[in-house]
């Protein structure tokens, strides 16, 4: 234990989390040579000049002390990481999309096959990305933010005590641009209400300490104060509305607290916390992703429409469902309540696009006329096409 502080003292501040790998590969032998067995090394150098076996103990010692870091060559590791990254990027949406088709078809094999035959892979992938971008960016932001916090904390730990946490290793090998891209994706796809949480997450992921703002304390405090004041000014009308509505405490907390937390979040955690935090968050992130993936899988692939069907002059019927395909003879509609209906094209009188009930807002709050549950993208979209009329046919029961 007594040797540990010297080792960390030399190691800790020098390599930043993301660039530590190359340094580690060359450094440890010297550190270990000096720290672990100084007398042996000294004796060895002097008394056994021709003794080759000296190299033998050196390699196992390194492997023992820092198994997580030196197992692979960093270049190879990077290559493997990039390989698995691209496998995930292509594979996960593909698997999800196929799963979604099965769910969309109501679990019926024949219906699933009908959908597979008619929904193009590009449409499927695009449809998946529109609904899953939010989930995807949430997962990535969570992993990178937690990973960076754990990494900077693990650097302070005595070496050899434990393998670096999983998220920390992920954060280490991920290029900065991927982290930045996932934050940008989150910025445009998260509901505005949750965007403040992105501030502490960003600060944590890049370990931006307040010290970066200014080296002296007074201007630093002033800058932080000004930033927070600007944020408060932006949010003031919404906060006032939330207070007036009375029961919106969570909204108030979500809008006010995260930017304040961002000031303190960068920095290492006490050694005591790291292990439980690492294992709990790994399980929690996994559980959350699974839990949040369920609605993504069950989100429809095709848009919801109501088709009015009936002869030229006679009673009509409204068919509520998703249009799978239309050819010269039939329009194939996957009904909302289940089952496929082949409607002769001649009988189709009208068709309207309908919103689904999952799109109903939960809060009645706006941030400068942007609804808090809209993402920046959706909010901008509503500015381009401001009026959305709900067609009467959409109100009819399924």
């Amino acid at each position, binding site marked *: 234990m007594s040797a540990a502080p010297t080792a960390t003292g030399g190691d800790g501040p020098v390599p930043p989390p993301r660039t530590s790998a190359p340094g580690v590969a060359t450094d440890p032998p010297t550190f270990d040579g000096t720290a672990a067995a100084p007398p042996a090394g000294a004796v060895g150098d002097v008394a056994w000049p021709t003794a080759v076996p000296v190299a033998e103990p050196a390699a196992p010692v390194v492997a023992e002390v820092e198994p997580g870091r030196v197992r692979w060559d960093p270049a190879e590791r990077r290559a493997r990481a990039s390989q698995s990254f691209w496998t995930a990027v292509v594979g996960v949406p593909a698997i999800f999309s196929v799963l979604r088709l099965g769910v969309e078809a109501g679990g019926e094999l024949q219906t699933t096959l009908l959908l597979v035959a008619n929904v193009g892979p590009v449409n499927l992938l695009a449809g998946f990305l529109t609904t899953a971008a939010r989930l995807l960016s949430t997962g990535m932001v969570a992993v990178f933010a937690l990973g960076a916090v754990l990494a900077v904390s693990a650097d302070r730990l005595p070496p050899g005590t434990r393998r670096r946490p999983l998220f920390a290793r992920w954060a280490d090998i991920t290029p900065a641009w991927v982290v930045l891209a996932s934050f940008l994706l989150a910025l445009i796809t998260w509901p505005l209400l949750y965007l403040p*949480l992105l501030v502490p997450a960003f600060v944590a992921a890049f370990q931006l300490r307040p010290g970066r703002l200014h080296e002296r304390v007074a201007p630093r405090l002033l800058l932080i104060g000004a930033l927070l004041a600007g944020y408060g000014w932006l949010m003031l009308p919404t906060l006032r509305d939330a207070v007036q509505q009375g029961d919106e405490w969570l909204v108030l907390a979500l809008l006010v607290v995260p930017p304040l937390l961002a000031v303190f979040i960068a920095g290492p*955690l006490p050694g005591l916390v790291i292990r439980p935090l690492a294992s709990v968050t790994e399980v929690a992130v996994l559980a959350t992703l699974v*839990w949040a993936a369920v609605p993504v899988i069950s989100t429809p692939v095709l848009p919801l429409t109501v088709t009015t069907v009936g002869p030229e002059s006679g*009673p009509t019927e409204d068919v509520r469902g998703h249009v799978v395909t239309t050819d010269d003879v039939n329009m194939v509609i996957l009904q909302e309540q289940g089952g496929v209906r082949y409607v002769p094209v001649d009988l189709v009188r009208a068709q309207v696009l309908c919103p689904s009930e999952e799109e109903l807002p939960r809060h009645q709050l706006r941030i400068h006329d942007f609804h808090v549950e809209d993402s920046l993208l959706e909010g901008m979209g509503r500015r381009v096409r401001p009026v959305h009329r709900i067609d*009467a046919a959409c109100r*009819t029961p399924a």
Partner: protein
Amino acid sequence: MNTRTAQSRLRAMATTLAVALTLTLAAAAGCDSRQQPDLPSVQEKLRETHIYGQSKLRIGVATNEPLMGELRNGQHVGFDVEIGRYVAASLGYEGDQRLEFVSVSTEDRIPALQGGTVDLVVSSFSMTEDRKKLVNFAGPYFVTTQEVMVPTRLKDRIRTIEDLRDPAYKVCTSGGSTTEAELEKHQVKTFVVKDVGDCVDGIRKGRYDAVSSDEAILAGFLASFPKEFEIVDMPFGTSELLGIGVPIGDPALRDLVAFFLQKSYQQGRDGQASPWQTAYNRTLGPWLKAEKRQPQPLEVPKLVDFDDKAPAK
């Protein structure tokens, strides 16, 4: 050295706390995003109403009140009819195939709702305390005043309520209307007939000398016979709030109708073309002396609808 250790320990504590709070907030946000809205939605309300699943919506309207509710060449036209169409379309009943206009006379409006022969009544139905015990009202969608219409030959002789009390003049009004009660309060002896149209017919045939009803209905008859009649402004002092009648056992439908009237009211207030304004301009607008605006509906429930996220401006 000690202060530095203490400082870094404090710093580590703050960081731990910040991380823990951020994670808690994120978890709370995740739970919140999966919750149902607190407020009832329009769709939910619709499911509670007696019209849910009905293939047609039946609306009770007048057929002999020009400009308000009239049957012209087999088509129902008028301000009330247009308002009825707007409410029906909002409830999911659009087009003649899904909408049935049922003729109800002034006195049949309450029995028709009670008996279930109509789902809504949009027929110059004044919202009064007595009627509220029998039917539900959504509205008002129009505010009018009581007026008297006289044939041109009598326009100089009937000018005040005092003149109406003169037994020489026969004053006619429709049965079961608020006008009947109001005239009784002023001790005016009235001849009660079924509809205001019958009074107008009677005057043209010389049976009566004056007809009293609300301004909108009288404006309609004035529009039909502009040379024969004149409206006399009399200080009855009561304003009539016209509402949409809903069966008393269906508060969900009342709430929905009020919600959609409010939607139109807000559109008009934001300077957009509201359904109410369109209906008014097409029917009553050119015939009323003073410009009218949609009154604010009363007791409007807060409901969640699909277009809630649309920008307000």
